[in-house]
């Protein structure tokens, strides 16, 4: 394998890992507050389609990214209203969000299938991008990739050293106790769910505006679900989400990697890889059951209703 191919592979790994990072970070924050939102796929799809429509209507890609984020937030507020205010079952509501998002996005995007746009272009960072190999991998990416680095840093910092992070963990740990110490449990949960929605919407926008600048029905292809597994795999730690996302990114671009070798495998079989890898990871986790349990937010998936 020559150095140029390796560079290309790592460059593509970062790109494919980016949507996973965004969704998984959002879902991690959400789960830290005790809410399990299985609707990532639906929120991503909505972000992707609405962002794409905005790009065509306004012609401005950055407006489109913002619209994607808002679409995700809108979907997340629907989920939040049902699962937080109306104390519905989080698993069922998450599934509903995925099914609803899938249906609504297909409906909205029906007339946009096959339309092409010029996607968000890479932005070379002066000086840094000139470093051999690393420059290409890390500093010749598009702005949303840089944004994903920044968002990782933000989430990491919030949980590492802010009161907000502590409050979120407290709510996810024991909502009754959090309420008794005067934390607004529903407020925190709404905040986290909507943040998760913004991240999923952004990830969807990344797919339809930067990664493959077009819209097709169900284009997320399970990335939302993979991100959900990633959160468990990462034991709710932001730095491990980064690592995991890039590993999965690498698994999704096997065809690139195989270019350097003589194997020829049918593309549909290669496409199974990230899903097989996800199952493999879930199995690996079982060997460390005790540790997973210690890291899981204790009230995850349990609705909370304050006494009135």
């Amino acid at each position, binding site marked *: 394998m020559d150095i140029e191919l390796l560079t290309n592979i790592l460059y593509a790994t970062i790109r494919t890992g980016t949507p996973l990072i965004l969704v998984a970070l959002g879902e991690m924050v959400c789960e830290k507050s005790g809410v399990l939102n299985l609707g990532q796929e639906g929120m991503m799809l909505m972000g992707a389609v609405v962002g794409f429509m905005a790009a065509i209507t306004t012609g401005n890609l950055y407006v489109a990214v913002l619209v994607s984020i808002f679409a995700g937030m809108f979907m997340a507020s*629907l989920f939040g209203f049902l699962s937080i205010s109306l104390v519905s079952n989080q*698993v069922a509501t998450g599934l509903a969000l995925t*099914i609803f*998002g899938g*249906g609504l996005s297909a409906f909205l995007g029906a007339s946009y299938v096959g339309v092409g746009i010029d996607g968000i272009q890479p932005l070379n960072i002066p000086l840094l991008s000139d470093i051999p190999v690393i420059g290409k991998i890390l500093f010749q990416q598009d702005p949303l990739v840089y944004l994903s680095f920044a968002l990782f840093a933000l989430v990491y910092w919030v949980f590492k050293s802010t009161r907000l992070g502590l409050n979120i963990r407290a709510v996810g740990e024991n909502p009754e106790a959090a309420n008794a110490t005067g934390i607004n449990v529903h407020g925190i949960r709404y905040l986290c769910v909507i943040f998760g929605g913004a991240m999923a919407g952004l990830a969807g926008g990344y797919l339809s505006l930067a990664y493959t600048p077009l819209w097709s029905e169900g284009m997320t292809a399970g990335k939302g*679900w993979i991100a959900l597994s990633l959160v468990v795999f990462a034991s709710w730690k932001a730095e491990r989400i980064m690592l995991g996302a890039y590993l999965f990114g690498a698994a999704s671009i096997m065809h690139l990697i195989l270019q350097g070798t003589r194997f020829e495998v049918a593309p*549909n079989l290669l496409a199974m890889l990230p*899903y097989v890898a996800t*199952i493999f990871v*879930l199995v690996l986790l079982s060997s460390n059951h005790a540790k997973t349990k210690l890291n899981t937010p204790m009230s995850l998936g349990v609705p909370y209703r304050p006494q009135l």
Partner: protein
Amino acid sequence: MHSSLNAILETLFPFKIEKRPSDSKLMSYLSPLIAISLTLISGWLLFIALGVDPFTALYTFFILPISDFYGWTELGIKVAPLLLCAMGLSLCFKAKIWNIGAEGQFIMGALGGGAMALAFLESESSWVLVPILMAGILSGLAWSAIAALLKTHFKANEILTTIMLNYIALNALLYCVHGPLKDPEGFNFPQSALFGDASLLPLLHDDYRLNISLLFGLLALTAIWTLMSRSWIGYQINVLGEDAAAAKYAGFKEKTLSWFALLTCGALAGLAGVSEATGPVGQLVPQISPGYGYAAIIVVFLGRMHPVGILLASMLLGLTYMGGEMVQMEMTLPKSLTGLFQGMLLFFLLASDLLISYRIIRIKKTAMPSDPTHAVSQG
């Protein structure tokens, strides 16, 4: 500041949500009807927004497809797979095993049965259906066995594993129709050869496309109904789902029950898949399932996990498929309205379900400071 905000909220919305002492049976039956009404109202508004006459559109979507007997038989074709998948899923959901994998099990059933049908392409004997259906059932069963093994042996979350298995199954189907099972004379289209006549499911009547798969569905309904209401294993599944700690305390074997529920579901979804392939479709195509496995999830929730409810709900969901096709043909609206209506149904249902355990009551006006009854108590 908090209290003033609350005060404003209370004047604007003078109701509060209060837990009922006991779940309301009535509401659990009314809630699906409320959800359907809300879906129709939203549909009405949606069509207005789209600039079409809402009455015509809703009529075309929900009534026109079943306005004649032929329409009802066509509905039967959609009901059969939904019913089979939903009955299997209801068993899993009763046990709180969140098997989302009916879609993958359906696809594998179609693929396994389809491969068998292609092997018997030349056969004239009607017995050939037996190995074909068996292959379909066993493929679905095997696919769910993977999920069962991952759940009981590796404690992997079944939601995530079954979803992944769905994507893998879809890619396996795509691989087969692009490769080994592709019709050699099919102009390179990604689809298999048409199955032989002997490999197709018998029709219930020659004038209609409806075949015996509907009977499979009704049979599954009766069998699982009896199992869940009368048998010891059904009781154990109910307890496991309602209260896993109680099941453990009583000594029920969680692993055995999980295997039972998942394998039954896999077998039924596999049967649904092979029936679809050897029924209305008649060959293997990439989009063999229009999302029946996912729609069946909605069917189970909407049908209150009760067999009769599931039958009615599968008819409604079957209708959304026909409605989508109908508005596309008649009014050139996108077919994807199907998915939108399905999603809205489930969403509204989950919201209305609040009324089962909670009731909304008017907040009594808080006593005025001058109110004499007020100063008595703990002053």
